[in-house]
């Protein structure tokens, strides 16, 4: 397919395009929402690498917990964090790692 056959001038809606891509280095934000969250405290502030973009964009589950069944759709990212990064003095193998899905608004580029 040549570039000439792709439509041009497409404008994506806000939040439609993922901000991060596989391989990006990111940090899980540190903040303390009252009432409901789905980002466990043990990963906050930790550095991670994006393994995959979860498609399609989906609801913010913090908002969904209060009954919002529509709107504010962004991407979740499956990120990889070594267990040695999560736990000081981790006693298992230095290869051991975590995978967890994090909503876009909880990640910062580093």
């Amino acid at each position, binding site marked *: 397919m040549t570039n000439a056959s792709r439509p041009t001038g497409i404008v994506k809606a806000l939040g439609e395009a993922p901000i991060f891509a596989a391989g990006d280095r990111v940090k899980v934000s540190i903040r303390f929402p009252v009432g409901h969250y789905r980002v466990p405290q043990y990963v906050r502030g930790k550095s991670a690498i994006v393994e995959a973009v979860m498609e399609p964009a989906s609801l913010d*589950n913090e908002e969904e917990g209060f009954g919002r069944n529509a709107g504010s759709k962004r991407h979740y990212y499956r990120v990889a964090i070594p267990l040695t990064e999560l736990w000081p003095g*981790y006693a*298992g*193998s230095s290869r051991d790692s975590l995978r967890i899905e994090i909503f876009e608004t909880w990640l910062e580029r580093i």
Partner: protein
Amino acid sequence: MSAHDHDHDHDHAPIQAGDQPPGYYEIMETAVRELLVEKGMIKAGEIRRQIEVLDSRNPALGAKVVARAWVDPDFRARLLANGRAGCEELGISFYDDTQLIVLENTDKVHNLIVCTLCSCYPRPVLGLPPDRYKLKPYRARAVIEPRAVLAEFGTHIPEDVEIRVSDSTAMVRYLVLPKRPAGTETLSEEELAGLVTRDAMIGVVPVENVAAGGGAA
């Protein structure tokens, strides 16, 4: 009684016989359900149907998916690319909005699944989770000391193999695709499925070739 999620031990109430009057929570469940039906928000038939759906989901479904992936490399590739679509190919429908990622165990990576925040579990393909998956010891320890957790199940993974723990917090659910045990080359797909246990698809144990006199399933 279902298991409790708390730190301290206490005795469980005895299992109630069928002719015992319903307890407080059963009365509440009945009352809520009947009111919602009376008000037209749900239909009684929907509850009955969903019970049938739940009863039809059990680890044998996941075992079929694993066995097919073992014998059919093209299916395996499609399954790893999109776990839900792979299951749907075998007629395992998903009655909710969850997605499925199938995690392949290899010589280099051993996968383990957990939901530290609650009890997210691939119910459409495995049925309901075991109580221990929903209780504090597994949920708290799987992400910080997976090797010790696996050891409690008799599973020892060499140090040069990565243990990869997946913590479900959003819409994605996980299913571990265990390694096919050695010495199973002559088994049929159905016989292979018979080797695959629920715990192997959670990742706490490997699949054993029981036919060869290996360890317990």
